[in-house]
């Protein structure tokens, strides 16, 4: 396959120089190419924020919708046409703040989509405010005395909700991130990839160095099917585990459980109405 199949050529990119988004974009393109997926088979769904602009920077189908609402849109797409590879990708504010309710319920629903979250622990596009994942003590023009709320822990929440695939990556490590992304996309069911990412413009606390010092890769001894162990590691303070934390292969994807697909696997757009059945239904109301 053409290695540049996802490249847009020379385009104007709205990210700051040195932003972690660039390496995530490159990793995503390489991962999709490596999986043998062509752009017309892939839909990227995003919300609002700097991370959410990513669909504009690679060749693909996309729906760049509202702030926080990528997951219901992605679920709707997958349920309408299960043959499409659907990736919902946005930042921490979008997915965990504005879209927090959808985050929980999408995990429950378990559509076969990949949820990639650029987690830089700060709001960038709105120019430096705390995000749900900001660390205590983080000072911003709004949180003038420092953040005092407990940070949102997306991987722990996902494990608590028995998500079918939970992983965490670091944007600075492209090879490992690509491997994790590939596993997530191939996984049958909802897959979360929370990507720790420095924000060079607005987050001087959680820098590249800070992430390196406060994270570690899970080794082969980690049992991905052990939910309690995954939760213990996800919740251990000050130490972010990287890699695939938890996999539950027993869960059936949302769209495979829908009665609409019990006797017919075709995408909805190909189907025809059976008018005789409709006539029978209406005539049953005499």
């Amino acid at each position, binding site marked *: 396959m053409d290695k540049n199949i996802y490249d847009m050529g020379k385009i104007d990119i709205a990210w700051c120089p040195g932003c972690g988004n660039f390496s995530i974009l490159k990793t995503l393109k390489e991962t999709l190419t490596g999986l043998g997926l062509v752009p017309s088979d892939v839909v990227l769904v995003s919300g609002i924020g700097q991370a959410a602009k990513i669909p504009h920077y690679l060749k693909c189908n996309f729906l760049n*919708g509202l702030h926080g609402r990528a997951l219901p849109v992605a679920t709707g797409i997958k349920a309408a046409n299960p043959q499409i590879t659907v990736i919902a990708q946005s930042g921490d504010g979008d997915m965990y703040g504005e879209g927090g309710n959808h985050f929980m319920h999408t995990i429950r629903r378990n559509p076969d989509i990949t949820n990639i979250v650029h987690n830089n622990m700060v709001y960038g596009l709105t120019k430096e405010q705390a995000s749900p994942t900001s660390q205590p003590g983080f000072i911003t023009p709004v949180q003038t005395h420092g953040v005092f709320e407990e940070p949102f822990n997306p991987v722990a929440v996902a494990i608590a909700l028995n998500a079918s695939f939970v992983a965490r990556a670091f944007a600075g490590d492209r090879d490992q991130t690509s491997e994790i992304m590939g596993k997530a996309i191939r996984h049958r069911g909802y897959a979360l990839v929370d990507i720790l990412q420095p924000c060079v413009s607005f987050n001087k606390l959680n820098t590249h160095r800070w992430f390196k010092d406060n994270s570690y890769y899970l080794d082969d001894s980690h049992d991905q099917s052990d939910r309690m162990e995954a939760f213990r590691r996800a919740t251990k303070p000050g130490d972010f585990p990287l890699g695939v934390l938890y996999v539950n292969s027993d869960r059936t994807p949302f769209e495979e459980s829908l009665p609409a697909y019990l006797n017919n696997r075709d995408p909805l757009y190909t189907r025809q109405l059976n008018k005789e059945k409709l006539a029978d*239904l209406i005539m049953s109301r005499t």
Partner: protein
Amino acid sequence: MSAKSGPGRKDISIVLGGEAGQGIQTIEFILARVLKRSGYHIFSTKEYMSRIRGGSNSILIRVSSQQVSAPVDRIDILVPLDHKALIRLESRINPETVIVGDITALSPERDMIDVPLQRIAEEVGDGIYANTVAAGLLSGILEADTAVMIDYTKEFFSRKSIDIVNHNITAIRKGYEAGRALCKSGKISISVNKDPSAAHELLVNGGEAVAFGAIAGGCNFISSYPMSPSTAVLTNLSAQDEQFGIVVEQVEDEISAVNMAIGAWYAGARAMATTSGGGFALMEEGISLAGMIESPLVVHLAQRPGPATGLPTRTEQGDLELALYAGHGEFPRIIYAPGNTEEAYFLTQRAFNEADRCQVPVFILTDQYFMDTYYNVPALDIDGTGIMKHLVQTDPDYRRYILTENGISPRGIPGFGEGLVTADSDEHDEEGHITEDESVRTAMVDKRLRKTETILADSVLPVLTGPDQYQNLIVGWGSTRPVITEATEKLERGDTACLHFPQVYPLPPAASEFLSRAEKLIVVENNATGQFARLLRIGTDARIDNTVLKYSGMPFTVEELVAKVSEII
């Protein structure tokens, strides 16, 4: 004492009253179908409190020799199942009203005919059969076909044990015998003619009409959050999910509902959401998204009185302006307001086709009264409806938002063709990518707004009933159509007609012509401020001096409307 159907009285009105949990709805289900299948025209509606048990609810059933489709105040036969019903319905009881029921349970202050429903039920085996006895009693009074009655009782209780089915059959028979005995003794005298054609007609309520229309329009996706009075559409489609291949998802909130439906349309489904005012308010940002990315969208909005939680189980036409102005920014939309069962079926079907053709959100406005009301209709026009798909197979150079004369860019979906399908909530260029270019922005706004003309090129016209030459024109929209029509007939004036709008937005150009021909316009609305009258003033040259408004939570009745319109004309 007698409920005579003398000259001019072609129908009688039966009211059942009781608290939630007493089973008056079971009586309604059985009675409406048994009487219709026996050859009567039937109209049935209910009003109920927002609670699972207790309170005081009532059901009105009109039994007629010709089609009736509007509520009346008058009560000819009242069957109260508790004392509260007598108190609550006091103002509607007239000297001619026949009250039938358990005298010991009711301790009434007025004359009534004693039928010991409870004791009969206990003789059958259990007091819980009292409501079935009552259904039998009324079937007997109206001399329903007993074979039909027994068959339907079996059908209705078919999921219960054989013992329960048999007890109900005995109960309904005993009730029937008691009803016949009342007639034979002369205590009650009823003579409404049967019309054999009614027996084979459909008995469909508003919730079913909208759901069947959705299926006829190719709906194969519904994402919604339960909210009275809109939920019946969700349950009706859910009941058909496997049969018709409909994806049904009860979502976490209405924000998810609208966004999921938009995602589904993007990938080629024909999706809808059903909700009421509060849920619709939550959907507004999503509706604006549909406007911007030019996504088709169908939302059924079953209105109830607001603001906020308002009166959850009551009726109002208070959300026209909510639908009209929903969503930030400027973008076209279509609003339909069905006036009867056939129209609800037809317009819901059409909503999917128009949403797809014009790539705009389409709203179907009904209300609690409409959802909970049914009457027999000859048929729903299956052959006259159909699914018009407007999808294109994309080529490699496909541009989703190509500028066109009528504002409509051919719509592709991912996975159908070689092109890429893009959509952005930001302002975008023809390829769907973010832009802040002023000329592109202006061109895109113009393109989107041009679709209003495209919508108007094929509008649903207002429906005139009554004389072509009129001085007075009574104007309505949505569920008030039958009550306005019957009230106008009752006025018996050759100079008064009524005009009903199934499409309230954009206002069809024909509206001005109809309105300008009248000397006096009276707009009838189930709201407090005359929202449709205001829309007519904006959209036409019409001078509207008179409105008849009701916002108590209850629908208009024929008598009430006759009195109010008479004061004006």
